[in-house]
């Protein structure tokens, strides 16, 4: 490889990462808007928000936090081992990340379906009867954890593609920026959950 090629490769690497970070910043601003909406309504309906938060399942929320934090670890490790050329281990760790993400969604499914069974979902008769504050709390709960859940689904699809690319040798020890960017996305999804967790499950 001559010197020019190395320079070109480097520019591409830096540019790809910067593009990913820029995208992540727009994601942060998107979620900031929702957190802002939450805190503005919370300051108006603080009692109702407390009642709402007390009803959420703290154990399941904590379990989901542990699942996502661990999936972040396996994701970070998968990038580390691909840099050392350990392809099989990297595929295994990426697979673990996807599995933990799927478990997160299973947990979320049980949590949501239990709430829906109790008649708590947007525009339900039960919720409308409880008044504005709790309606807004659960509206934001479904919107914010739902949007976050969509991000988890997107992350799972993205990492699954990375697994295929790693197997096909399109991601390898010299060329791994796509895997790194997928990792950055996955960690951001984790960062958002780190704030969603106390805001909905702990503040009661």
């Amino acid at each position, binding site marked *: 490889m001559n010197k020019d090629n190395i320079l070109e490769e480097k520019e591409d690497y830096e540019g790809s990462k910067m593009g990913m970070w820029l995208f992540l*910043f727009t994601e942060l*601003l998107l979620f900031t808007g929702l957190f*802002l909406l939450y805190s503005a309504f919370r300051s108006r309906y603080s009692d109702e928000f407390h009642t709402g938060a007390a009803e959420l399942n703290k154990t399941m929320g*904590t379990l989901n936090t542990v699942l996502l*934090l661990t999936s*972040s670890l396996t994701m970070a490790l998968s990038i580390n081992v691909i840099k050392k050329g350990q392809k099989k281990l990297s595929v295994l760790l990426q697979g673990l990340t996807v599995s933990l993400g799927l478990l997160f969604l299973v947990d979320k499914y049980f949590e949501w379906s239990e709430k829906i069974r109790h008649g708590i979902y947007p525009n339900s008769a039960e919720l409308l009867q409880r008044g504005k504050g709790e309606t807004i709390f659960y509206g934001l709960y479904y919107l914010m954890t739902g949007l976050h859940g969509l991000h988890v689904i997107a992350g799972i699809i993205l990492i699954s593609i990375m697994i295929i690319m790693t197997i096909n040798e399109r991601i390898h020890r010299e060329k791994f920026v796509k895997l790194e960017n997928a990792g950055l996305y996955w960690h951001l999804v984790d*960062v958002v959950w780190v704030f969603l967790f106390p805001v909905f499950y*702990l503040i009661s």
Partner: protein
Amino acid sequence: MNDNNKSITGYRIYFIVWICLLILTATTVAISNLKLGKYGALISLFIASIKASLILLFFMHLKYEGFLIKAMLLLTIMTIAIIVGLTFSDVWYRH
């Protein structure tokens, strides 16, 4: 060798960060059971910020990134701070 390899972090630091994150999660859950009211909310947001910083610095390699990405993140955080600050200057003085 280009400087991509610079960002290889040891396996150990990842496990240490992960354990710290789990300890912080356990702490924030334990504190929430104490029912500290308004202070409880502040403490849990503070712990969440530490957790987010750990993920950003180590898992997302921000610690090893160049000036530009750090400056871009700072700009984003400042933008968020201004939006939040301006909104609350309204919300808090409404009643």
